[in-house]
């Protein structure tokens, strides 16, 4: 009954698929680059300087971003579903995404409201990233404060949803006073984007993501005991309060940075854990966590490849693609098992 024997083959296949998707993703784009040159520019230098720049500074960071975003959202969804004993939970429920959206809305839409100090020229990429991080971090602090006081996990879930409502309300008030240009900029952020990350930004992204990932791995055993329910988990010797804090912190770090750098990306966090459980037929987080990582990364790479509309100059909003891929998965699962389980 060892994990290696039972799931080794599936993991080898998944890793292979991930590599294939990675190279396909890099290979696709508005400029056609031969596969040989792609490999050449990845592992050395090629003569064609334009291609080299496209691959190294544009497509490669974008593919890595896709892997981080997909795997991260999947893992935070998995953590939330187990912690809140709710199959509909995802990174959105804690209000992390809402907090980030609020921060961004205040910067983009609020600039008109608060006068000339924050002129349009000031709204750089970094100010959006900082605003989103601050927003999700503040919501995280609020959720942590609440969760150390409130014992009931369901209450935390509802509080997260309330943060979402408050955000939506503030955003609608702000948009009422905003110019069309500002609104457009906010809407574009809401579409989500995996591109335009510099190597420096990617490094910061990866750093915070890694801390969240390590915390998630450290929570595996506790997550498994939580499958029985909180009272059983405690009777098995779990320090419930501490584990809950670590799990929430891990989710916030991962989902918060993703939203900050790539925008609010929907459905991946909800759909990937369900898809993985369906295929791996287990609830053991020791198997699920790496499997969700791989599936999330693969699905995100595929979504991004579709978003580029191969052979054209257009790039569709990534959020639209994830919803188009994610929603049918959820519906299919519901129809197939008539019940959502976690």
């Amino acid at each position, binding site marked *: 009954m060892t994990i290696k024997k039972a799931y080794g083959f599936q993991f080898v296949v998944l890793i292979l698929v991930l590599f294939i998707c990675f190279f396909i993703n890099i290979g696709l784009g508005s400029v056609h680059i031969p596969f040989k040159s792609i490999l050449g520019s990845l592992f050395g230098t090629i003569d064609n300087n334009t291609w080299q720049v496209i691959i190294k500074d544009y497509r490669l960071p974008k593919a890595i971003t896709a892997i981080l975003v997909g795997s991260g959202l999947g893992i935070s969804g998995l953590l939330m579903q187990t912690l809140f004993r709710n199959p509909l939970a995802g990174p959105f429920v804690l209000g992390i995404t809402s907090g980030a959206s609020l921060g961004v809305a205040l910067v983009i839409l609020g600039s008109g409201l608060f006068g000339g100090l924050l002129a349009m020229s000031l709204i750089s990429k970094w100010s959006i990233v900082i605003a989103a991080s601050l927003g999700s971090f503040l919501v995280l602090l609020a959720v942590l404060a609440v969760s150390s006081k409130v014992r009931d996990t369901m209450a935390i879930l509802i509080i997260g949803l309330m943060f979402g409502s408050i955000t939506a309300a503030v955003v609608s008030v702000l948009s009422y006073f905003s110019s069309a240009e500002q609104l457009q900029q906010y809407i574009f952020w809401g579409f989500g984007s995996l591109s335009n990350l510099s190597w420096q930004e990617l490094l910061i992204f990866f750093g915070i993501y890694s801390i969240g990932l390590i915390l998630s791995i450290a929570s595996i055993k506790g997550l498994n005991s939580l499958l029985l329910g909180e009272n059983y988990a405690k009777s*098995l*010797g779990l320090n419930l309060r501490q584990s809950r804090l670590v799990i929430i912190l891990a989710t916030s770090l991962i989902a918060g940075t993703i939203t900050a750098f790539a925008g609010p990306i929907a459905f991946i966090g909800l759909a990937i854990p369900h898809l993985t459980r369906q295929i791996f037929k287990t609830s053991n987080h020791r198997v699920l966590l790496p499997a969700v990582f791989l599936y999330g990364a693969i699905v995100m790479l595929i979504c991004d490849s579709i978003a580029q509309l191969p052979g054209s100059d257009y790039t569709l909003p990534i959020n639209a693609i994830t919803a188009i891929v994610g929603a049918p998965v959820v519906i299919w699962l519901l129809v197939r098992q008539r019940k959502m389980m976690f």
Partner: protein
Amino acid sequence: MSMNTKHIILKVEELSIGYKTKKAETVVASHINFELEKGQLIGLVGANGIGKSTLLRTLIKVQPALSGSIFLNGKDLKSTTNLELAKQLSIVLTEPISSKNLSVYELVALGRYPYTNWIGSLTDNDITIVNNALKLVNIEDLKAKRCYELSDGQLQKVMLARALSQDTDIIVLDEPTTHLDMYHKAYILKLLQKLTKETGKTILFSSHEIDLAIQLCDTMIVMQSDTVVFDEPCNLISEGIFESLFPSDLIVFDTKTGGFRVNK
């Protein structure tokens, strides 16, 4: 083991149970005293709402005692950590488990949680104990099934196997026979009796099956509105404890058969 060297697993002294808020204290029952010995099957009975669950929840440290002490293997429960407790006491609750997606084997293996390393790897020893627990409860054929595929009776056996694999001195079960048919009620309680004999574990359960408990238990705890009595079933019958358990205009206790019947 001779009769005068009693091995006490759980000792309760002048225990008072109930709920405490900032404003008021609601006492559900008080002056509770009993000693549970190794290898005994103990039934906890009483009318609905008398405080059976509150007593069990206090004993398993889900809620604090109002006053008095509980000693588990001679150590005060208050100073016992969650992990220490997990190695001495396992539970089967009435609440359903959160994830019915777990396989029977995965669920029973979770009983090894207090003993495994940081990521929960099962050693050969753990696997032997898990398989043994499945065998004791006679559910080896269910191993690969998912929990949502099981009947209530099967699920109850699986939960019992999980408690067994936790390898504790005492197992506490809250109403293990609810939702079960007459055959499975008797089956589960008989199984509990068999387990105390075969494994030397102490098993405490609450139940409404008083007649079955009278036949199977070594000792019983009877909760009444004013007192909590602890004794062997035959003594409890001769003292007339069961007669006063329910209002006698509807249900009377028959001392000869050791069961209740409806007053027609």
